[in-house]
């Protein structure tokens, strides 16, 4: 599984209230939700993300609430992958479950500039900065998690499993 996109840089402890403020949580239309992703940090985020981007961030990305609206709004805004030094655990699980790839890479922030072209290989846990011609080692996800991501999220993965076992 390879993912390509331009980097958008954020710092440490980007919390779920910044990713999607609570006042938008009543939106049931996911594209409406996406328009407000990250707006408090960068009012032009949605515009930039439309072309398909990769978020690069520091430690503890997605800390705070369990709201799944956070990874959903990023995914629907056009974010193809989030690479961070580390993630808050609920965000990490939510992202995988909605089919938004997440990768941990300790050196990502130091080695990436805004707008760099990145290529992420999820199965190998490798990131290539095409602009700087650099290779970075990232965390490798367990196989069953890669299966959830490649199925497009937990719902599709579970449907497949339940169909196989005859429970659906």
């Amino acid at each position: 599984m390879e993912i390509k996109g331009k980097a958008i840089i954020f710092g440490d402890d980007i919390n779920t209230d910044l990713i999607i403020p609570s006042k938008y949580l009543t939106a049931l239309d996911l594209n409406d939700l996406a328009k407000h992703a990250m707006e408090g940090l960068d009012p032009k985020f949605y515009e930039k993300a439309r072309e398909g981007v990769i978020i690069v961030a520091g430690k503890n990305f997605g800390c705070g609430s369990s709201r799944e609206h956070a990874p959903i709004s990023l995914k629907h805004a056009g974010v193809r992958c989030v690479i961070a030094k580390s993630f808050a655990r609920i965000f990490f699980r939510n992202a995988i479950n909605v089919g938004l790839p997440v990768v941990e890479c300790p050196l990502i922030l130091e080695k990436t500039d805004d707008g760099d072209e990145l290529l992420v290989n999820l199965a190998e846990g490798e990131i290539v900065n095409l602009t700087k011609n650099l290779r970075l080692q990232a965390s490798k996800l367990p196989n069953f998690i890669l299966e959830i991501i490649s199925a497009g999220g937990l719902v599709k993965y579970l449907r497949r499993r339940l169909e196989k076992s005859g429970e659906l």
Partner: protein
Amino acid sequence: MNISEKILARASGRKEVSPGEIVEAKVDVAMVNDITGPLTIKTFYEIGVKKVWDNNRIVMVLDHQVPADSAKSAELHKIMRRFAEEQGIPHFYDVGFGGVCHQVMVEKGHVRPGELIVGADSHTCTYGALGAFGTGIGSTEMAAVFATGKIWLKVPETIKINVTGEFQKFVGAKDLMLNIIGQIGADGASYKAMEFDGPVVRSMGISERLTICNMAVEAGAKTGIINPDGKVIAYVKNRASKQFEPLKSDANAKYGEAFDLDVSSLEPQVACPSSVDDVKPVSEVEGTPIDQAFVGSCTNGRIEDLRMVAEIVKGKRVKKGVRFIVTPASHEVYLQALKEGVLETLTEAGACVCNPTCGACFGGHMGLLADGETCISSSNRNFTGRMGSPKAKIYLASPATVAASALKGEITDPRRL
């Protein structure tokens, strides 16, 4: 094994588990609220299963936007009501019957020692106060739990915190937890369990233990947990309709890390804008003018908190120009405070007492902030934009510090009133 490992071992049908292992565990109770529930329900139908795995093990609570603060919230509440009816879910707490979900879970006996509880809310870690392993998950994952009753979990490493000494007057559980988060950071316990022990923790009542475990997630923890003792067993027996089998850490249990903390010289603590781990002793921020003071939330909206506030404001008046918003955490708390005259004392002092809701704490309704305003709050998060305007500032503190600040109109050490 420690208590977290034992609960996960039992839930996954194993004799033993160790940190780092991934287990598939059976869920004892699953909880959703009105923010995460509608998305769970939508996703549940997408999976294609017709009936939930066990209607008696699901708890649904309307709390974040109650009574409905907009037509949109009313629609979300309708989705929840319809689902509860269709699936025959008996534990559905509608407006007027429950309150803030975590308080309701505890009060209504849905949290029992030794059980594995998942909630579609990050503060599900609160339940460790009663010796259960509670952890927050998202809506899609909850939909999968609704369908199968199972979840994969990584067995966390545990940090043990041994608390000794004696609190000064007006210093307590909230100050202790803010201090710990300030020391270890907002990701200091990421992916880990925090186990609290020591004479100070053992002498605490249920309410204070709930405050501590509630904020474990603010350090990134998967759960906060305390070995259940006689107080807990008596509390739960009084409220639960199901049998339970408590588990406790072995004397030789292993911990990833362990540290001691003496609280004897601990001052009231304040988390400064806009990070829960930017914690200072109150003396360093005393005198900061405030526009609003808030007491409530799953962290500090219990009867013990309201009594403390009443003791401080009795016979006094909230400073002119300050809104003092008080939100009891549940209807049970509200009624008790009403009977004891606590609400009368608060109202006479100039507090605005609201119905039980997550409202102001999560920035939904009932006390939001304008550009440039400052609030001191007994809740759990002070992120930018959390309580309304992204240009507002939020300080976190104990109910005692919040009450003292409401009287003076500036951040105030409650010991000096």
